[in-house]
């Protein structure tokens, strides 16, 4: 069975007692000593490790030896949703929109604060990365936003005149 995490493809095959993991053409033997409730005691290439794994959609949280990493599983066919928008300003953290200081059609300067997001007593100013015109406001004051959600669309001044 093949799984893709980020840019890496790992294949797990089983035999009678053991599992084999294949990565970059190299095969390692994996023995499962115990597995329950998101905890696995494994022998990987002879080294005994305890791994904690939780899954949430495509996310896999893995802790081994006190180090936690978050891997994202991608299916070969479908790519994950991309948040890269030419002029879209995204939320750098989850939180609540505290204020929006511009309207659609407003001309803004690079560095100007367009909105403020608040989370856990911390305020983050969403500033224009370049001069431009507000093409769309995608959130309202008081709204809860996720990390990387697009808040405001900005276009270049010329572009807006063409529309």
């Amino acid at each position, binding site marked *: 069975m093949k799984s893709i995490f980020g840019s890496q493809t790992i294949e797990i095959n089983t035999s009678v007692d053991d599992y084999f993991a294949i990565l970059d053409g190299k095969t390692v033997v994996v023995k499962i000593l115990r597995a329950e409730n998101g905890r696995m005691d494994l022998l990987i290439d002879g080294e005994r490790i305890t791994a*904690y794994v939780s*899954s949430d959609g495509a996310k896999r949280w893995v802790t081994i030896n006190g180090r936690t*990493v978050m891997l994202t599983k991608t299916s070969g066919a479908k790519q994950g949703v991309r948040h890269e928008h030419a002029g879209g300003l995204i939320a750098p953290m989850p939180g609540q929109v505290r204020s929006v200081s511009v309207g659609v059609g407003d001309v803004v300067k690079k560095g100007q604060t367009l909105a403020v997001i608040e989370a*856990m007593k911390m305020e983050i100013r969403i500033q224009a990365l370049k001069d431009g015109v507000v093409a769309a406001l995608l959130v309202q004051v008081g709204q809860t936003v996720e990390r990387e959600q697009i808040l405001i669309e900005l276009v270049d001044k010329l572009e807006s005149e063409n529309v």
Partner: protein
Amino acid sequence: MFNKILVANRGEIAIRIMRACRELGVRTVAVYSEADRDSLHVQFADEAIFLGEAAPKESYLNADKLIDAAIQTHADAIHPGYGFLSENASFAAAVDSAKLTFIGPSADSIHAMGDKAQSKIKMKQAGVPTVPGFEGLETEVDFKQAAKKIGYPVLIKASAGGGGKGMRVVNAENELSEAIESARREALNSFGDERLLIEKYLADAHHIEFQVFGDQHGNLLHLFERECSVQRRHQKIIEETPSPLLSPKIREKMGQAAVVAAKAVNYHNAGTIEFIFDPKTSQYYFLEMNTRLQVEHPITELVTGIDLVQWQIKIATGEKFPFAQDDFHQHGHAIECRVYAEDPMNNFLPSTGRLLQFIEPRGPGIRVDSGFAIGNEVAHFYDPLLAKLIVHAENRETAIQKMQTALCDFVVHGVATNIDFMQAVLKHDDFANGRVSTKWVEQTLESGSLLPAVLQPAAELQNLIAAALSDILFAGSKPQPAVSNETDPFSPWKSSIGYRIGENSK
């Protein structure tokens, strides 16, 4: 003793206080907001009162609702915890007016220490060392003259301030007028008060605070120091006691100064005198007083052996604090690490979500004060503290080792945490040598030497294998629908009545 106490807080501190109440045989009332319906502190209490919307103004900061809840449940006292309304003099006064007991100092003491300029003037009068500087200045000319007298760099800060707001470091005279203007604006916005004070800026200073504790009969003592210099943007991350910097002689002098400072405002209950400490000269200066229980109180409890929260409650009933200064000694070394739901890889911004895994470390000398469990939602409305991991060991070196091991056993999935970051701090030579000033985290982050160790390829492979294997092993492990394949309708395995093999029914 009180019959029932309402805990006007949430998270780990609410649970910490309720634990002390239980031990004293006092019933507890929790309060909660919309976001905290399923929170642990609500389950921990004997009864719980819903306050309102998640926004603090509608819930934990709403004095009227809190007092109403206490009256409605026939509680006789309110413990404010830390944060929220804990240092709000009018709340303390309102609790008194409602014929309830505020578990903390008097409203007058809170008020006297609430203003930075006023409290500094009071401390000077009491003979407590303060940072050289001036209060009550108005014109720019006044500030210019003052700065010249003090010598640059100077610090401008809001009289009503806190948390670094309305605070500016000024390195030279040509930066002064802009700094005054922007600090004034920020102070007015944040505190509705534009008064500023000016003082000498101490660059490599440490933050060392002293716990004080007093009863309502005039007995007030100190319970030694806490070194809290590992902080980022005025947010403390790691605290320890004893401080690796203090000699017994300086410790005694600072402790006495802390007692004088607290007595100057007729203080009773638990409080903390914060000092700035200059490691080059061993000079210390009064910074401010926190008129409440501190987040980091557990390390003091571990080295002194007393339960501060239980004593807060007893003192509030009018009981005497039956100790003398000589009764207290520091035993061993204690460290606290604050596990925050924030992402060091995303500029330490808050991280929210549902906790998919939450395993707290255990073992001798390990204490975890936490307010979360697996399945809980970490919401964006409140501060990002998930848990406090506290260790106690024979000396500093063994305490650091114990903390490193305990952090290694702390597993949190579902939100990003600062656990790796704290490991990097504990491992750093500067921390080992006690050379961490309050600016150290920011400076060291900038230099890049505080990044968590890069994952070795072998570790990366292990992570991938674990993730892929868990999909195979656990994906099908969800409970199967309860369809029985059994043909025997009288099978004992189906019976819902308690049944033990090899035991005759009686």
